């Protein structure tokens, strides 16, 4: 029962987080043609306020709730397999994108420092990419064979292509 409520909270929060991260680049992008006069000024102020509010009050707290409830779910449902660990790496990528959006959010009041169209597109593409990777890993739950890892990582220093030290003579190893 706890798992169901946690999962509901997790999915609700990550929907807000992902959706917000997809909307923000378009909201904060530097405009090619600035609307002239008072209407343009009001439009700029409106976009600044909406971006700032969305980031500080909705998207970032949703990210914290999504990740926190996800961590609780790890202990409740124990899905301790390769796909989960790769998913955590993909979530880390999404967080780095979130941080990049945040850098622009803090500079929104200087229109020249807003992200150019190409940068906003890159942020949007990165967001969609990481979300797709996460969804694929979570829904497909692919088995990750250990053979994908290099032999030296699985078998220790003796499997290194070059000798690290004379094994067996080290004071570090128990006899």
């Amino acid at each position: 029962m706890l798992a169901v409520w946690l999962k509901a909270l997790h999915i609700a929060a990550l929907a807000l987080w992902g959706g917000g991260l997809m909307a923000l680049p378009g909201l904060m992008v530097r405009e090619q043609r600035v609307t002239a006069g008072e209407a343009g000024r009001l439009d700029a102020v409106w976009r600044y306020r909406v971006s700032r509010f969305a980031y500080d009050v909705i998207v970032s707290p949703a990210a914290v709730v999504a990740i926190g409830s996800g961590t609780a779910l790890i202990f409740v449902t124990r899905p301790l397999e390769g796909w989960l660990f790769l998913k955590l790496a993909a979530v880390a990528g999404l967080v780095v994108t979130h941080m990049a959006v945040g850098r622009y959010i803090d500079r929104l009041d200087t229109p020249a420092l807003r992200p150019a169209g190409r940068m906003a597109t890159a942020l949007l593409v990165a967001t969609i990419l990481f979300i797709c990777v996460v969804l694929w890993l979570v829904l497909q739950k692919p088995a990750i064979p250990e053979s994908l890892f290099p032999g030296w990582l699985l078998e220790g220093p003796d499997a290194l292509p070059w000798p690290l030290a004379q094994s067996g003579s080290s004071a570090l190893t128990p006899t």
Partner: protein
Amino acid sequence: MNRDYVEGLKAQRRDIDSRIAIAGHPIHAMLVAFPISGTFGTAFCDLAFWYTADFFWARAALWAVGAAFAMGVLAAMAGLAETLLVPGVRRRAAAWSHATVAMVLLSVLGASLALRLEDPAAAVLPWGAFLSGLAMILVALAGWHGGKLVFEHQVGVKADEPL
């Protein structure tokens, strides 16, 4: 100097004063040393286990990651309270960057702990070591932004006189 101006600067500073503190020392800053060192300690234990294949290091890694996660949760609660109580913190993207990356770090530490609890030795290679590497990157990012909040935005810096 104009008295209103000085009062205004003082109010601006109180905007980012720590609320969760003992005698002016922010508790969050005191607690974060533990998950940071626990993350490094876990990575070191994994490296030592890889090198020696001694079960001692697998068990040491389990304790290290357990301590890192438990103290990290406490640090997160203190940090969350500051975020909710101090308006000048939650209006800064650096604070949210720090919060989100620290939450992912906790998630990685939690997964690492849960995995190692099942079988400490079998957990290390390859996935325990993978999670330790990921945690090292995340702790660096979280530490960078946490430092930025203090050194650049002066969050939690006690200054009675306006700077």
